């Protein structure tokens, strides 16, 4: 185990607490990550020294706040290797970014009869915007399904993506099955047919090195809170020529050129898409999260999670009466693992694990069409991040064992 990574939990005081008289093991990172002191301190520092509204301001605090805000943008730009800072737009989160693309690019470019291709494993945030756009425009929504191993069926993808396709939108990594999708290949397929590719990076950017130029994605959205940044901040990357051709999304302060009573012109990128006062402190905090990740190195973050999965997955699959969804090979798996225990509803499992201090999620994970496709109503899900350890994996395994015993009348009879 990477020994430096084992020491970082001192940066996360929230992890040092008892829950139901047990030491907390937080395995709900796919829902939201925890924030290191460095990020919280960046927020506090901003509010206590530089806070002001950005741009337009002539006074010193406004200059400092603007510099902080734009520095955060450039940190993110470098982090995802975007060509230019103007292509990095601050949003409220991944959902906001995907809706932005559907409502502006989609609204302007999708006509009746056009096709939009997504996958059956999409999170609702990368599914309903396209579904509703298709309904509104009388376009056709098509789904790429899965291979038996829980991977995207790329043969089907190649059949579905045709010259009728205008948009292909797929998650880089699944928030349920831990699958990593071949986004670069999908983007190339889309481009062959003149379509744009929208990547949902919510579960990838926090966990692996992402290079938007190498992937050649046209749009790419993700959230700050899943990569240890604050809530209420996210990023939409878009290629300049596409962003420039798009109408604005929201109207208000900062996104304008000239406003007359009956017409207006818009600001240059990125401000055209940043109407009103943005989450300035949130951006600064996201910049601090990027610094934190860079300090460790995304390769090490990924290797650390891989090590946990390599250790845990075989042991988990060996449990009696468990079903693990998604790829069964650790090598193909991110730190997100969905599973069910036989005859036990995942909500009961999650409650029981919580009694053991182990925080997992249970439900449809905002992926109802995937659940329906897999013939499930819900699953439990454990998801790991850089501060988790092999000991956490052991705690999960023990707690699952105890849960099974309890509900299989073991504990109940000894009561």
């Amino acid at each position: 185990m990477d020994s430096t990574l084992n020491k970082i939990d001192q940066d996360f005081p929230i992890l040092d607490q008892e829950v139901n008289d047990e030491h907390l093991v937080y395995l709900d990172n796919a829902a939201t990550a925890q924030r290191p002191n460095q990020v919280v301190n960046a927020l506090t520092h901003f509010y206590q020294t530089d806070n002001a509204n950005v741009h337009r301001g002539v006074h010193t605090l406004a200059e400092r706040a603007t510099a902080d805000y734009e520095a955060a943008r450039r940190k993110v730009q470098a982090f995802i290797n975007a060509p230019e800072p103007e292509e990095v737009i601050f949003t409220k989160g991944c959902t906001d970014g995907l809706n932005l693309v559907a409502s502006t690019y989609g609204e302007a470019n999708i006509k009746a009869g056009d096709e939009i291709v997504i996958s059956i494993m999409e999170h609702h945030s990368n599914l309903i915007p396209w579904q509703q756009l298709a309904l509104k425009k009388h376009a056709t929504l098509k789904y790429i399904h899965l291979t038996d191993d829980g991977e995207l069926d790329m043969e089907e993808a190649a059949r579905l993506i045709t010259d009728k396709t205008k948009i292909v939108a797929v998650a880089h990594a699944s928030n349920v099955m831990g699958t990593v999708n071949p986004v670069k290949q999908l983007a190339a397929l889309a481009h062959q047919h003149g379509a744009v590719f929208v990547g949902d990076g919510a579960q990838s950017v926090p966990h692996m090195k992402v290079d938007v130029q190498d992937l050649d994605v046209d749009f790419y959205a993700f959230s700050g809170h899943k990569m240890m940044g604050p809530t209420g901040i996210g990023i939409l990357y878009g290629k300049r020529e596409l962003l420039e051709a798009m109408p604005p999304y929201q109207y208000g302060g900062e996104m304008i050129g000239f406003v007359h009573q009956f017409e207006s012109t818009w600001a240059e990128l990125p401000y055209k898409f940043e109407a009103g006062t943005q989450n300035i402190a949130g951006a600064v905090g996201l910049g601090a999260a990027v610094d934190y990740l860079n300090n460790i190195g995304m390769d090490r973050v990924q290797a650390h999670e891989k090590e946990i999965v390599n250790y845990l997955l075989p042991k988990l699959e060996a449990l009696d009466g468990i079903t693990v969804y998604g790829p069964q090979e650790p090598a193909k798996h991110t730190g997100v693992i969905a599973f069910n225990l036989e005859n036990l509803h995942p909500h009961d499992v999650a409650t029981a694990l919580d009694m053991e201090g182990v925080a997992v999620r249970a439900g449809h994970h905002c992926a109802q069409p995937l659940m329906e496709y897999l013939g499930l109503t819900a699953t439990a899900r454990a998801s790991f991040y850089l501060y988790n350890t092999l000991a956490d994996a052991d705690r999960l395994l023990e707690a699952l064992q105890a849960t099974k015993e309890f509900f299989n009348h073991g504990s109940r009879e000894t009561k």
Partner: protein
Amino acid sequence: MGLEKLNSLYREVILDHSDHPHHKHALPDATHKITLKNPTCGDVINLDIQLSDDDKISDIGFTGEGCTISQSSASMMTDAVMGKSKDQALHMAKTFSDMVMGKQHPQADLDELQDAAILSNIMTFPARIKCATLAWWALQRALLKDDSTEDEEKGAI
């Protein structure tokens, strides 16, 4: 494991009800039918109620899928309201939903709930309150709605 706390939620009687639910069968010709789903977890209940001419619940049955709490709650609910008048049943549903929100009630009201009263513990598990109330909401909606069937998607809680 915080076994005491888990035991306090999953009492023997609850686990018995979920292992061997009462009235778990459909009543194809029931006078009142409803399907309710909890979108959060996918739990679904189909509730069939036979109301007699004098507005008494002469038979009741449920089918569906769900967690231990929702299944046992449905089983306990059917036990409790069987033979009761429509108004009594509605009053019990109100008592139940008040109870799980932590509101005080006369002991007589709680006694009327029979086994179901045991779910008052659910208060301390806020995320599970909906699991416990699904069956009682279905009862309420089934008895109050005008038409005898309801679109299941609209019936989401």
